[in-house]
């Protein structure tokens, strides 16, 4: 109970800012708040609290292939998707409106509690003072050593992005960790992990090559839990970090 109250309080407190900055459009604030509670009970079981628990279906990202329109989303919730795990839901019309409003606005939820600056200046910092493109790529520009950030504003909550600027190790997803491998002939391979299973690991190495290694061929294998990304706590001012954050949140996918 306490958690729902807390969420509602934060939402209520932040919606003024939210409305000013992220353009909720046709969705009423009350519906979004109501929808968040319904989502927690009806949807989070499978989709997860962040909407990203099902591979290929990122509710937070907003790019729902089967539900480009609200009507399509309503249809899916009403009838389910045959042949998949998505069942039909029994929702009242008001609940349906609320849950659609919430799903359409999931990705903007955390932005109310963080400080956002000027996205244009943030881009300048990203590409200049911050040296971010040394490792990250956005819309075809920059290196691939770190994760591609072209749509990071859709798939990562603002709070996590804010954390990544000051404490990148805490914010790093386990999948993105760097690995260091030494083959039996002594060759050292380092890079960013893309995938791993019991028998092999897939990575992009420092030369931006896709490499797949059989663990049985390795003399040493270690996963580095410290992020290679520097903290910007001291090298960017808080205002500058707010600008960079605004820029990151503006990255919603490839420019068309």
């Amino acid at each position, binding site marked *: *109970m306490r958690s729902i109250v807390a969420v509602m309080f934060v939402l209520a407190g932040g919606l003024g800012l939210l409305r000013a900055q992220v353009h909720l459009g046709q969705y009423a604030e009350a519906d979004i708040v109501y929808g968040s509670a319904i989502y927690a009970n009806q949807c*989070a*079981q499978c989709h997860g609290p962040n909407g990203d628990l099902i591979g290929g279906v990122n509710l937070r990202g907003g790019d729902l292939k089967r539900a480009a329109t609200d009507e399509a989303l309503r249809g899916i919730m009403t009838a389910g998707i045959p*042949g998949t795990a998505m*069942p039909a*839901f*029994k929702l009242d019309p008001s609940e349906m409106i609320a849950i659609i409003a919430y799903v359409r606005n999931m990705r903007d939820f955390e932005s109310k509690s963080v400080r956002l600056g000027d996205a244009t200046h943030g881009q300048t910092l990203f590409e200049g003072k911050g040296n971010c493109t040394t490792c990250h790529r956005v819309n075809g520009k920059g290196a691939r050593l770190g994760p591609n950030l072209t749509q990071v504003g859709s798939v990562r*909550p603002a709070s996590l992005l804010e954390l990544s600027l000051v404490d990148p190790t805490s914010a790093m997803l*386990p999948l993105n960790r760097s690995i260091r491998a030494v083959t039996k002939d002594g060759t050292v391979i380092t890079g960013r992990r893309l995938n791993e299973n019991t028998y092999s690991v897939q990575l992009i190495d420092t030369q931006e090559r896709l490499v797949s290694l059989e663990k049985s061929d390795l003399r040493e294998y270690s996963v580095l839990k410290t992020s290679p990304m520097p903290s910007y706590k001291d090298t960017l001012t808080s205002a500058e970090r707010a600008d960079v954050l605004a820029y990151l949140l503006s990255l919603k996918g490839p420019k068309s």
Partner: protein
Amino acid sequence: MIRRALFTTLLLSSIAAPIGAQVTSERLLRAADEPQNWLTYSGTYESQRHSRLTQINPTNANSLELKWVFQARSLEAFEASPIVVDGVMYITQAPNDVVALDAKTGAVFWVYQYRTSPDSRPCCGSVNRGLAILGDTLYMATVDAHLVALDAKDGQPIWNIEVASAASGYAMTLAPLVIKDKVLVGVAGGELGIRGFLAAFDAKTGKQVWRFNTIPGPGEPGHETWSGDSWKTGGAPVWLTGSYDPTLNLTYWGIGNPGPDFNPAQREGKNLYSSSAVALDADTGALKWFFQFTPNDPYDFDAVQIPVLVDTDWFGTPRKLLFWANRNGFFYVLDRATGKFVSGFPFVKVNWAKGLDADGVPLQTMQPPGQPTYPGVQGGTNWYSPSYNPRTGLFYLSVWDGYGSIFTAVESEYKEGRFFTSGRIGSPIAPAAPMVPFSRRTPINTWTEEAGHGAIVALDPRTGQRKWVFPMTDVSTSGIVTTASDMLFTSTREGHFQAMDARNGAVLWKASLGGAVAQAPMTYAVGGKQYVAVASGSGMFVFGLRD
């Protein structure tokens, strides 16, 4: 080696039932004696998922090769375990189509297509775990809570009855269990506020013979373990096939979580018979005994695992035992005649209880708000079939090691046919990091290290010692089958199917099948050749020794 192979071939030929013979209840009782067939979900009534076949053995397993593939026309998780009867394999294609195939080649004899009701809303995927057979009739439980009888020769429906209301949240995903002239099924829906039950139906007519409510009603013993009206929506589903001991005439079933799942304040009391094992008279459904693993369960620790029946010498005394690796992280040994606790120990990291008392009751240690509970919501193990190999005396199971969840209870109101879980689950690792999903739908593993990992564990049921462990990077949703040649077949959710030496855990052979395995492998033989079947992604892959 040659002599052994020839002997096996002769054995298989000599014990084969005549082609086309009906599957009588007597054959089901002695299913272990015809290892070329696989007549029930777990192979035999003891549910050891252990086969007497020996043709594939540790010395030749490296010559396994793909024989055929069945591609299901479904995007659902492939959780069904096939049955094989005299060269014919029967499998379900999710949610509820039935396919009969030539078990040697994969050629299809017939397909029965079932149209599920639009009211169907199973909690966790429109899946099905397989079929039962008696005579020439197949039995299937459907996700819209119907029980369907089909002619095994042509796939034509014989009868179709509604077991419960799909619109009210009831579903069925389990493979039925045939005992004598009855078909036993249970209902799913523990996340939708159902009142669970297990029922037996006349195999010929579909008429209900008995019904056991997994939540006692007013005036029945145990009803007092539910506060107020919580019993009406208390869940306690039955979604995995039970076992049967013909000498005691008892059938054993695991009962699922109480509902709402995560807020025990909405259902104060022990909540019998949720998260329990029950032993019922197979003829009447009368409760002989029960054993509750997780009283007033706030973690969704369904006791929905395979009850494994073992007759063995137990520290010098022959005993009829029940081995149970529970989702709550404890392994239990029970006396299956009385239900008395014999022994128990944790098989993964456990912090929701500091141990078990002399009666097997957990000494609960609920974690402070925001702190992780181990094991997490998917459990130390789950419905993935374990295997017991009488030759090694070891119990083999898929575990989730080092896996925890943060449980947060909230209030919610029951509304018919809707999710009723009253809680949220969080990950104990980095903020907003992906949680470990209950099934895997992409080939990318995004939840590593701190999120926990899977392992195959060979457990000594007498001591709790791990005789060997095969750790995996991802968690596992695969079951296990062992054979009398000390082979162990299992898979990973990463899609690797592997043949292992049951004695020491050595991987003898493996194949990458490219899709998550959410089912238990099984083995059978046709024409003197042993096969092993496993489903991965949307396909079922059948392997045998190189010709």
